[in-house]
Structure formats: structure tokens, C-alpha cells
């Protein structure tokens, strides 16, 4: 079980802030493909990965990051702090 978090417009498109998912995906990209195949709202949210950022266990990373041992993944748009 991995916990997935969504922020900002990604959260709005998917319609929930977080969910627990059972997956056998080996990388973030594979998880994205799995979710996108599942329902239209995921496909919509993940349609342009260049507009998204991903954090694995609260560290920014890339979409080819491996998921072995990971507890938490977050998807969100580019950050706008400061």
C-alpha cells in the first residue's frame, strides 16, 4: 500500500487530497500509467507530465524514480512559494 497525495489543481482534477493504493508499479511513471488507465479524471490530471512535479517520501524526484519501499508519493504543479 502506497499513500498518494495530490495538491493544488491536481487535487481538484482528481477530486480528493489523498488516497491509499495497492500497486505493483515499479516506478512513478508506471504508477501514473496505472492510475490513468483506471479512470478519466486521472488521465486528465496526468495528461501533461511536464506540467507536474512529483515527490517520493517528501523528497522531490523524477518520474522514473523506483517505488520499492516507498510509503508516500505526492503529485502537484510547479511550486509557487515565497
Amino acid at each position, binding site marked *: 500500500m502506497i499513500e498518494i497525495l495530490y495538491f493544488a489543481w491536481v487535487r481538484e482534477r482528481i477530486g480528493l487530497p489523498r488516497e491509499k493504493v495497492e500497486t505493483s508499479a515499479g516506478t512513478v511513471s508506471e504508477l501514473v500509467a496505472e492510475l490513468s488507465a483506471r479512470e478519466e479524471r486521472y488521465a486528465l490530471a496526468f495528461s501533461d507530465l511536464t506540467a507536474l512535479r512529483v515527490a517520493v517520501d*517528501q523528497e522531490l524526484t523524477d518520474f522514473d524514480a523506483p517505488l520499492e519501499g516507498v510509503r508516500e508519493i505526492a503529485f502537484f504543479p510547479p511550486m509557487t*512559494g515565497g
Partner: protein
Amino acid sequence: MEVRVQEAPFAAGAELDRFTARAEGAGAVVSFSGIVRDDSGQLTEMRIEHYPGMTEKALESIAGQAVERWALADALVIHRFGTMKPGEQIMMVATAARHRKHAFEAAEFLMDYLKSRAPFWKQERGPDGTEWVAAKQDDEDALTRW
């Protein structure tokens, strides 16, 4: 080094005085405050969403890098989340160093990283509804300097 992520407003002047008082041996203190700006005259409020847990970790990592790289006497980061009106202060950073060049550079470094690498997202509310603020290419480009 002090990092705070909070919903409540803060008093920048009192924070600056406290920070300066404890920055022993520093000859130079630089502060930056970010304020909600209403360029269009149509902004009723700004809402900032963040990623609890990761936000604190990211800010501590950024501040730690600044302290080490510029041998700072001290560094302070305060960043709010939640709802704010135009004119309200969103965040501040402060840096204390022996010399002015290091204090200035470290404060600019902190700001450049906060803009694009700390998990905050701004949403503006006006008479026609809400809109997520888009990240600026300029802000991403600013990181190449470091």
C-alpha cells in the same frame, strides 16, 4: 537556524529584532519580506496551500545549505499558509553574516529556492472566481545562478 510554517500572521519587525539580537558576531543582517500584491485591483484574497511535513523538511534543507555555504551566523525562514488579504505579509527570511555580501547572497539564495522548490501553491480569488498562480520561468531560471 529557525524555520516556521504557520497559518497565523507574524510581526516582521519583532522577528527581525529578535533575530538580530541573537546573531552574535554578525556585522550584517539582511531581511526579505514578501507581501500579497494586488496588481489588477481585483484580488479579494490569496490562499496558500502547502504539503505539511515536506514543507518543513524542504525549508530546513534550504536554510541549512545557506548557513553552510555562506558561513552564516544564523538564518530565519517564516512562511505562512492559508488565506491572506492584499497587503498582508506572506513570508520572511533573514540572514546574519560577518560581511554584507554574504548576508545578501544567502538571502537571495533562500528566496530563489523558496519560490520554486518549497511545496507551496498560491491561489488568487477575485470577483470572477479562483485561479492557481502559474510558476514563472524567470523563477526557475533564477536557480541556475547557484
